[in-house]
């Protein structure tokens, strides 16, 4: 016994920032961003925070399946851009939506949604929970360096959530970590200890663009190959692949290398940019509400990011 996803929700802040608007801050162009990353616009917080986004996405997911907050037995959330180190986002969601269950966050950067599903699967397997809420919420605008044209054009703010219920919808997963901070890192503020001799790093996202690209494409390809092979499936058996929305060209190259038509990969990066842990649940909610997913469909979720960590799974809708 694992779980099935019975509800999805998302929320993005109303302010939309187009590529042209970004040109006022940094030396870039709409054409460069579209060609290089695939983003056309992103939603950016003004008076809301990651916690606000998380709660709104959570409420939308609960309403989507008619689940009352009091029915939840578990809340797991993830963010790399939360309001506070403590309490965690999941604890604040628990309070604000009026749930009573235990709640904790995990950190697996952009791969967090699949790590959360896999963590939840263990609670279901042990019979500890009957209903769980999973939330990825990011205020990336807070942690990007708005003077760095290489990164600030990529990211956006948003949150996505899913409600899980005991079921048989979690088919298989593969989780991988290749620990290191050379390729992707987001340093914390180092504080102001009078005793520290460590030189503070800028608390912004740093990415080695080419290495990130290579890692991401290789991760997606090896994860998808392994999942298909281990489950005696071919790409034809999969209704849709929902990848983390990091860069359109990562998805295109992975599709080409896997020899799977790009139409099988869901892409919405043009609307939201890279929303880290929120990207997959946002995509799932769009797909769910537009009626593109049919019960019984096999869907691959595939994610990769800082850690370096990558995680992919097959779910049965």
């Amino acid at each position, binding site marked *: 016994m694992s779980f099935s996803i019975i509800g999805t929700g998302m929320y993005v802040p109303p302010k939309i920032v187009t590529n042209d608007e970004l040109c006022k801050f940094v030396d870039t162009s709409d054409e460069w961003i579209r060609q*290089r990353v695939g983003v056309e616009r992103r939603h950016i917080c003004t008076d809301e925070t990651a916690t606000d986004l998380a709660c709104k996405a959570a409420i939308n997911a609960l309403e989507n399946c008619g689940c009352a907050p009091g029915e939840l037995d578990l809340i797991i959330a993830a963010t790399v851009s939360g309001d506070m180190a403590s309490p965690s986002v999941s604890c604040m969601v628990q309070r604000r939506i009026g749930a009573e269950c235990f709640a904790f966050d995990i950190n697996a950067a952009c791969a967090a949604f699949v790590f959360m599903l896999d963590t939840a699967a263990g609670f279901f397997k042990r019979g500890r929970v009957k209903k769980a809420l999973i939330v990825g919420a990011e205020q990336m605008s807070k942690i990007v360096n708005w003077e760095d044209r290489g990164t600030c054009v990529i990211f956006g703010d948003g949150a996505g959530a899913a409600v899980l219920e005991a079921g048989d919808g979690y088919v298989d997963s593969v989780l991988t970590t290749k620990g290191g901070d050379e390729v992707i890192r987001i340093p914390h503020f180092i504080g102001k200890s009078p005793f520290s001799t460590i030189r503070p790093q800028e608390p912004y996202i740093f990415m*080695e663009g*080419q*290495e990130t*690209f*290579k890692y991401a*494409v290789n991760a997606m390809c090896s994860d998808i190959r392994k999942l298909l092979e281990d489950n005696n499936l071919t790409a034809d058996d999969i209704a849709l692949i929902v990848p983390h929305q990091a*860069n359109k*060209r990562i998805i295109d190259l992975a599709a080409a290398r896997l020899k799977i038509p790009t139409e099988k990969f869901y892409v919405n990066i043009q609307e939201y940019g890279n929303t880290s842990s929120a990207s997959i649940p946002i995509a799932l909610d769009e797909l769910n509400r537009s009626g593109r997913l049919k019960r019984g469909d096999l869907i691959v979720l595939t994610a990769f990011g800082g850690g370096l960590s990558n995680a992919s799974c097959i779910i049965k809708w």
Partner: protein
Amino acid sequence: MMLEKIRELIADKINCEPESITEETKFADLGIDSLDVTELVMSIEDEFNIELEINESMVAVSDLIKAVESKIKK
């Protein structure tokens, strides 16, 4: 031999005559950006079963040839 292989990969990607590419050719002059260079590097890694370090200093065909040859000699 290495030049020929790299020429072939580039020509295949951008649809040009392999002969028009020399060691001195800069990727930027071919309209190849750094992510395309990464893609080339990945194809070469698969072809020769090696792992290359990629960075922004890889700007010309000769840089790529040097990187591959240093790995193969090891």
